[in-house]
């Protein structure tokens, strides 16, 4: 088990990518929410990278939902990156959250037809 590292933030021209790693559970969602909300303030596009997540619980899913809702209110795009078979993807799919959240397989934008 690993403690969550502080979110690593990449920010360029209004595009903010938040890389999360380690464990997300109800013991740290509050802290994470504060840090992420601060980082994405005023962003046009927000990407939450969950590829390195080792544990994600329902409070972590609620956090993603709230972040997504705030992004919509702020007219920002919101995408979660969780590769197939990753811990985060499994949990997201179990509760069918992939229908409510934009989930991408990788950090590369999907090919447009």
């Amino acid at each position, binding site marked *: 088990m690993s403690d969550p590292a502080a979110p690593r933030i990449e920010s360029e021209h209004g595009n903010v990518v938040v890389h999360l790693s380690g464990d997300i559970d*109800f013991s740290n969602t509050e802290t994470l929410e504060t840090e992420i909300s601060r980082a994405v303030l005023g962003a046009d596009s927000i990407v939450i990278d969950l590829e390195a997540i080792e544990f994600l*619980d329902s*409070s972590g899913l*609620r956090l993603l939902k709230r972040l997504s809702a705030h992004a919509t209110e702020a007219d920002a795009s919101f995408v979660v990156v969780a590769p197939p078979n990753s811990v985060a993807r499994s949990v997201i799919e*179990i*509760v069918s959250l992939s229908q409510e959240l934009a989930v991408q397989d990788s950090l590369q934008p999907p090919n447009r037809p």
Partner: protein
Amino acid sequence: MGYVVPDGRGDAARARLSVSVTDPNGDFFEAERVAHLAAVVDASSDAIVSKTLTGTITSWNASAARIFGYAAEEIIGQNIRVLIPEERQAEEDEILARLRRGELIEHYETVRIAKDGRPVDVSLSISPVRDRMGRIVGASKIARDITTRRQAEEALAAANAKFESVFNQSGIFAAILDTNGAVRDINALALEASGYTRDDMVGRPYWETPWWGDSEHARARVRRAVERASSGESSAETLPYVMADGTERLVEFRMHPIVDDAGVTRFLHPTGIDITERVAAEAALKALEAEEREIALGLQRALLPASFVDRPGIALAAQYEAGSDVLEVGGDWFDAFDLPDGRLAVTVGDVVGHGLSAAAAMGQVRTALAALADHAAGPGEVLMRLEGFLARHETTDFATVCYAVIDPTTGVVEYASAGHPPILAVSAAGEISWLDQAQSPPLSGAYSPDRPQGSTLLEPGTLLVLFSDGLVERRKEPIDVGLRRLADAARAVADLPVEDVCTELIARLGVDEARSDDIAVLVVRLEAQPSARFERRFPAHSAQLRDLRTSMRGWLRALGVGEPMQRSVLLAVWEACANAIEHAYVDMAPSDVRVEMQAAGNGEVLVEVRDFGRFRSMTSSADRGRGTTIMRELTTDFRRESTSAGTVVRFRVESGAPFEHE
């Protein structure tokens, strides 16, 4: 009546004030003014004398009488030459000639003779006196007694000479600058040592002297030091400087203001000491220390077992971690070896001292202990014999050691400790105990007849932790706080593979502060058939829950449960516990949460999570219900029952759980 008008230049102004009192045609006001001026003249501390152009004295004030010893009555009418020494008579001719030409003579320093024949150093200021028609008719003469000043000047010159000798002969580079930083003087050493001439230096701004070469940095720093010193502030720093032959060296440079009695900075005084050799020596010493640390560390590692042989029924791992301080290497050891009767001996110890000698002593102690172990009846006797060995061979006069012999077939452990922290035992159920019934003083080389030993029966799955005090000791903290921290950490990681237990313990206990001491940790687990049952009861705090995940993972792994199913069990149990913590103890004191898991023969895991609070129906929001959704999706036969005694959640997780399919 006439007098010379002051020109407003301080002393000179006073010097010019002189009177002729011989005018018979003055009116009343003129007479009053004259009287007033005469009073001023008499009050002056300088001798004020007037004379005709042939040298006849016409007036003589009180100070003149005091300085030269003649009363006015006896000297007026005499020639001024009576005051002039024989060898200086020509001066008067010169003075009179200049007066006739209307010139002023100012601050002319010479010697005059008092009535008693004593020479008096005087500073003369002489001005012509004109009549109303503007004709020069005489001279007024102010003589200031400068005997005292002369003496002071001579004393100063002597002091200067002394200073010069210090200035030029000390081992310190020194210079004198004016307050603008221009070099006034520089000592011989500073020139000789660096190969420059006085002309290279004197007159230049100090920061532009060739010492500082092309270094903009050095020049800027020196200039800054000059500015600070000009405002009265000393400074010091180390700077590179360049010799005449181009060699670069280091100087420890200081700049002091030289302040007069009134607090005004008059000069700046830079000094310097060449510290090139000192710095090089310090660097060499540091390199030597680092090298010794490397050697000691290398020796330490060479003397410690590189790996352990696998033994059936026993998992064994150890780790050594050097301290952060350069020389804090060596001394701690661990070891494990088989005894002839098939039992396993384990030990951790610490030879006092650091560096090469401690590492070497450690090697001897460790070898001696292994050799003695075969022939001793038990751990207490091993320590007694070891102490005898240390005394005979003068290996070390202070070491602590704990030593234990484990019988893997029965679970019996015999142990003894000489001044060393006790062995920590964590049972499979997470219970903590300390093997502390056989503590005796450290090995000091003085023979102790009685080294007690203890024994205990370990349950299968118990983890033993042997460690050196570097793992638990913190400055300004009682040792039992450190021991408690170790117990908590060990309980949290007890289900991990033993190698990971070592790593985790060092990581968890070593992160808070820079650790100077080295650490040795040795971990043994009596393997048992993995228990089909897992039970944990803990207070409803989230901090404890995280450790629960670690334990569960260890148990599932030991059962051979695959990674995807581990994830399902971990998440489902976690959500059940989180619900209990969040909802069971609303408006009441939090109590415990209990987790029980049972491995069924068909690869299923049966789970029961129980709390002892009151169930509150969860808010109906879809978000809140996600935890339940997760549990239902991951498990089979999910049931939740709430009674007045609390809530029980039961479910099964089958192999081939959802996480295996995507």
